[in-house]
């Protein structure tokens, strides 16, 4: 079973870094990249994603606002907010949206942990 992963980060390098980790973890997944919230929303309108990885600090709308929008359309999609800015308020907002907070720089271990949980969620949602 292959899944479709949405990667949103204004930094191309950060997106490349996630792509590198994904090639090691789940090479058969489809990866779709967006550089900002608007691009991500346009893409998510066309086709549903199974999992979304969102950078927090981006020009325009930030990752938490984007997570809120995605959540309205896709109530069960596993979403991760990725940031080095782990202030209590930001972590709390991520939790309130039902997103997982992952520290940046994102390690392969942290990403793997999130995706394993995400796969369980997707599995039970489809059942």
């Amino acid at each position, binding site marked *: 079973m292959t899944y479709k992963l949405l990667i949103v980060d204004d*930094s191309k390098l950060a997106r*490349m870094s996630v*792509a*590198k980790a994904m090639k090691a973890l789940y090479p058969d997944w489809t990866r779709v990249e967006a550089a900002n919230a608007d691009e991500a929303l346009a893409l998510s309108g066309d086709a549903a994603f199974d999992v979304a990885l969102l950078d927090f600090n981006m020009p325009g709308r930030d990752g938490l606002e984007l997570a809120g929008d995605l959540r309205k359309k896709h109530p069960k999609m596993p979403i991760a907010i990725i940031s080095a*800015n782990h202030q209590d308020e930001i972590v709390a907002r991520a939790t309130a949206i039902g997103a997982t907070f992952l520290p940046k*720089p994102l390690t392969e271990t942290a990403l793997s942990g999130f995706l394993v949980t995400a796969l369980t969620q997707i599995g039970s949602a489809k059942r």
Partner: protein
Amino acid sequence: MTTTAPPLLNELQLDALTELVNLGVSRAATNLREMVGAQVHLSVPTVELVTRSRAIAILAERESNNLVAVHQVFEGDIGGRALLIFPETKSLELVRAITGGDLPLEDIIELEQEALAETGNVLLNSCLATIANMLHRSLKMSLPEVLRGNAATFFSLEPPPEAGDIVMFLYITFAVRERDISGYIAMIMDMPSLTALTHLLDEFIERTAG
């Protein structure tokens, strides 16, 4: 004076540097949040290679009033200066936020210098340490020094850059929720450091995405 054009960062190097600054400042904001007990909002950092006069103009057009800066020199494979800059009118408010807000004004004024130096030290160190760690290098930081003046004062500190008048200017604004506090973080490097930095960025890009 050199007339050669500066080795500008390519798109991916600039992206990598912005991402490093973003990481460093995000960590710094987390630390500042602990100090002031309120959420700290950050802008997305802007990284520009500009002349010193342009750096002065950028800051001067945003902030016309008197400014306070906490200044630290960093040395290592790359060297330069890091500055945390506030409008002077906001600095007492920052001290008030950090000390808890119950102190009388005269005590706050007395504590101002020390509190500013400490805040600058925490912010600039967490920012630079993150960047240094990500680049696999160590940087030696000087003790913080509190300066008063304007954009021209802060970007013309002695000694002047050894080679060329091009500096790297990174700026980001931060604002503390429920408090009228905002400021800038700027880093200045001269040409030799910039050249060294491009090599470190290439190594970082290779490790991260290669």
